[in-house]
């Protein structure tokens, strides 16, 4: 792989990040994707669109989110200072709203009255239902039957917001199957439907568009670091499911070569057990959901079922930009097990009074590991992508508690 001078120059006009990305979809979707690409490339430079997005992010989402110094957690760990970018404080409780607010404005400008979305943990479904309600658009959310069971509260939240939640019973009944089903809906209803993908995967322009909308996280964080700490952090970390909160934090820092970047994937029961969702750490390049990227599959090319305690990380692919960053050596991707994530969840709750989402708890666990590698004056910036209310039942069940 050639050395990369400017990480902000990607993707190219075909939506490719080096060998990754692209548009691997059926012919019927080429036209709606071209229509969306054309609209989005125009809107991302349109001052009125940008101003409207900025207003929504400030007054509806509640941005900027603070960077919080987790002092007691840092003391407990005994290493570098751990800083948390508090995306859990956003409206609806996760970073996912950054993207849906943006895509909703695109849908509105394109005149599409119906929104569809896929969801794993339900956070993107909730964020989609939220913006649809606000704009008076119809919203249909596809969700794997397994995820519906483990994220009941979010299912009910979506219904309260007026969305229809459609259970998906094909394949592994999780996020990847929900994405397949949403694609099938889109291909059937292309004329009036806007497909809101919830992560930086899918065909071009989604990896670009979803990254742009989440990149506010890193733009704020970089300025906040310079303002509050007078320097950039030594290392960044975030959990990686499809990779939207991670690329959101990382992107602004990609050309700051001294800042180390570490993505935390779900290692489930441990990568060596085969029960995990660590596509980058343990997968290989392939084609899934419209793009070339690292995937988990067998030698016949069948996508394998993944495992993670967190529904939002239970995905056998990953956004193509992460594959590109991995091959370029700009970012490292490591596995964090279910148990490590749960320990981090409890530790953060007890030392800081913050219940993190199980997804985000993977990032916290990784931040703890990184903090141990750096001196006391080191700075580790961790994306706390969401709050943990939705996971209370899962954690209770796992620990044999009835609530």
């Amino acid at each position: 792989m050639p050395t990369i001078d400017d990480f902000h120059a990607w993707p190219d006009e075909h939506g490719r990040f080096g060998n990754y990305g692209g548009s691997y979809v059926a012919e019927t979707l080429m036209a709606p994707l071209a229509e969306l690409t054309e609209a989005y490339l125009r809107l991302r430079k349109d001052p009125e669109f940008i101003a409207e997005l900025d207003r929504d992010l400030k007054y509806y989402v509640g941005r900027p989110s603070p960077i919080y110094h987790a002092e007691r957690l840092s003391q407990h760990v005994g290493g570098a200072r751990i800083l948390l970018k508090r995306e859990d404080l956003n409206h609806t409780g996760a970073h996912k709203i950054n993207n849906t607010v943006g895509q909703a404005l695109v849908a509105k400008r394109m005149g599409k009255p119906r929104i569809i979305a896929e969801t794993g943990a339900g956070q993107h479904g909730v964020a989609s239902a939220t913006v649809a309600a606000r704009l008076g658009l119809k919203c249909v959310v596809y969700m794997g039957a397994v995820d519906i069971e483990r994220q009941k509260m979010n299912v009910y939240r979506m219904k309260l917001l007026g969305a229809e939640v459609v259970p998906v019973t094909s394949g592994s009944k999780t996020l990847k199957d929900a994405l397949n089903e949403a694609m099938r809906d889109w291909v059937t209803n292309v004329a009036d439907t806007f497909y809101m993908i919830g992560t930086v995967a899918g065909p071009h322009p989604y990896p670009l568009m979803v990254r742009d909308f989440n990149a506010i996280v890193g733009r704020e964080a970089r300025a906040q670091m310079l303002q509050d700490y007078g320097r950039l952090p030594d290392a960044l970390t975030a959990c990686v499911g499809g990779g939207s909160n991670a690329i959101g934090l990382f992107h602004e820092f990609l050309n700051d070569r001294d800042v180390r970047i570490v993505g935390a994937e779900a290692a489930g029961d441990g990568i060596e057990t085969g029960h995990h969702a660590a596509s980058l750490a343990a997968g290989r390049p392939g084609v899934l959901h419209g793009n070339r990227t690292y995937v988990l599959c067998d030698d016949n090319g069948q996508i394998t079922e993944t495992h993670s305690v967190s529904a939002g990380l239970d995905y056998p692919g990953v956004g193509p930009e992460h594959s590109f960053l991995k091959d370029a050596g700009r970012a490292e991707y490591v596995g964090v097990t279910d148990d490590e994530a749960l320990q981090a969840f409890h530790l953060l709750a007890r030392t800081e009074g913050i219940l993190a989402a199980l997804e985000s708890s993977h990032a916290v666990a990784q931040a703890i590991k990184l903090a141990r590698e750096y001196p006391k004056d080191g700075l580790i910036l961790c994306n706390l992508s969401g709050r943990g209310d939705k996971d209370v039942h899962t954690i209770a069940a796992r620990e044999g508690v009835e609530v």
Partner: protein
Amino acid sequence: MPNPVSPIPNPGSRRIDRRFAALKAASRTGLIPFVTAGDPSPEHMVTLMHALVEGGADLIELGVPFSDPMADGLVIQHASERAIAKGVGIGEVLGWVAAFRQRDAQTPIVLMGYLNPVEIHGYARFAQEAVQAGVDGVLLVDCPLEEAAVLQPLRDAGLQQILLAAPTTAPQRMVRLCEAAEGFLYYVSFAGITGAGQLSTHDIAGRVADVRAQAKVPVAVGFGIRDAQSAKEIAAFADAVVIGSALVARLAEATGPDDIAGRAKDFLQPIRAALDAH
């Protein structure tokens, strides 16, 4: 002196062209059944393929099962899941094609599926093995023209890439598809997934006529054709009809291995008769 005409890399590779030329000469509409390879029974796959030909198939589309068939409805999803559960992969599919070729050197075979199994198998390796087995073309649903550079090793080996065109395809793009098409162009009759039931003959007749006027290759129409009646309606303006989900569903109800070939023939024969009754 070396021969100035470069030899065709795969002697069988123009089977598709020859078959369509013969159909045209006889003023017949081609019948293209789709079956998911390995379903309902891996052991009886070759028998099923011969039965399709006996039932009147002019070309066979063999679906290579994939875990995430984004463009397929429930019938083909379930057939794929069953085949995968029985361990069916590219190796098995090519084995059946090779076995079929021992008795049938004429009927063209197109492998239909998704890119990842081919990518993981390796493009060059797949190309060589597929040609050796007697495959004539590939239709990779999630590999549009824009991404087809990866398929160069397949073309080099003599496999034809069958392209899809759809009602949503923009006019300029249709020109490019028609130029690039090899073998035949597969026109998807409606925006949707396989097995959906929204076929409207009236709407598509004009569109298919436009495509046929532009394309250098024959145009096959698929999606939504389920029986003799719908096949006959489409045959009025298409070079061939593709029938998938309705056949796959019929085969899935087979009561035992001996029932499979009979069902295939019983399903296709009335359709063949309707197509031929001009």
